[in-house]
């Protein structure tokens, strides 16, 4: 008779997050969703000005390699009091870069609770869920929730009118193709290996606590 072996406990899956502030409020984002962290100077010096009356949260457009990105002021997006942003997060698999006040720290979470169903407006598009960390509750943002398809369309139209036609058109198609590829992945295709950590731009990192 074979002894029954106790089943090996599964290790807790964890996810690395970046805790950051925008408009004075603490948020979290998966570090795997952040491709680069840059100083705001890199945006203001190389970005083009974008002005759309209905989308005041976007004021800059930048070209990062093959990607064209709209820079969203996170404080304005969440209707928080205006602050002076210092950093830009370039978000993976989106056409969004995010202006934030600064990075608080990095942490690992093992549990993400779905946003309670009582929250039933735009916030369902903003957050992946909530996490409890150090006796505090922090919303974990959804990278694709900063610009709707309609807003991207309107911003692209504005850029086309302002003469950046070739760049925007080509990059929209490239971004759409990339997103299309991503949405065709099935669960079994998803690699559990963590994605590359964000690239903290050398020399631009104002936070000494964050590895470069």
């Amino acid at each position, binding site marked *: 008779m074979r002894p029954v072996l106790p089943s090996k406990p599964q290790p807790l899956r964890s*996810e690395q997050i970046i805790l950051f502030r925008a408009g004075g409020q603490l948020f979290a984002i998966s570090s795997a*969703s952040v491709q680069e962290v840059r100083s705001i100077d890199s945006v203001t010096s190389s970005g083009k000005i974008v002005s759309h009356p209905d989308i005041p949260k976007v004021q800059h457009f930048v070209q990062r390699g093959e990607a064209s990105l709209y820079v969203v002021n996170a404080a304005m997006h969440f209707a928080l009091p205006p602050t002076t942003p210092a950093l830009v997060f370039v978000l993976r698999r989106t056409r969004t870069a995010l202006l934030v006040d600064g990075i608080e720290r990095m942490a690992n979470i093992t549990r993400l*609770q779905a946003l*309670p*169903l009582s929250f*039933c407006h735009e916030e369902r598009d*903003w957050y992946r869920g909530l996490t409890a960390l150090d006796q505090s509750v922090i919303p974990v943002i959804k990278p694709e929730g900063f610009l709707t398809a309609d807003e991207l369309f309107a911003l692209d139209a504005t850029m086309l009118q302002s003469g950046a036609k070739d760049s925007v058109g080509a990059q929209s198609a490239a971004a759409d193709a990339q997103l299309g590829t991503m949405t065709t992945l099935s669960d079994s295709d998803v690699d559990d290996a963590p994605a590359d950590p964000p690239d903290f731009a050398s020399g631009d990192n104002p936070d000494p606590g964050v590895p470069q």
Partner: protein
Amino acid sequence: MTLLAEAELQSFVLLRLGDRRFAVAAKEIAELVAPSRVFRFPHHTQEIEGVILRRGRIVPVCDVAEKLIERKLTSRRFYLIAQRRYAAQNEWIAIPVSGECELIHAEMTPPSESDAPHVAGWLAHAGDVIEVLNLAALTPGPGAQHRAGSAATPPGALQPQEARR
């Protein structure tokens, strides 16, 4: 009291909002807790003022006083943790109340057509007529369509766990 009459009695928790008392079916109540820190973050659901941490769960705080007595509570003595039913699941919500709660057994009179949707019925208790609350109609829940899609959620990311009960 006959057996038939006893069978028709149901359990309710009476709660106080300002000067008025309301009732919720006892089977929908999880516990009564002292007020704790409310964590706030940006959102557009006006009825929800934030969330509390309770037994490792994140519970939304829903102030129903403005809807029921047309003013916010000036003092909160407890949070009544209740189950809110949604189509496919139940979730906890925390309802601030301004006084002690009481468990009673009473017979409920069904609502009439002219009653507001949040009225599940009526109780006669200690000389008062008390509204029984339909939490599903009183507190916010999904209704609007939201964009689906998680194209930018990184591979290997944690999937949110439903706060089921």
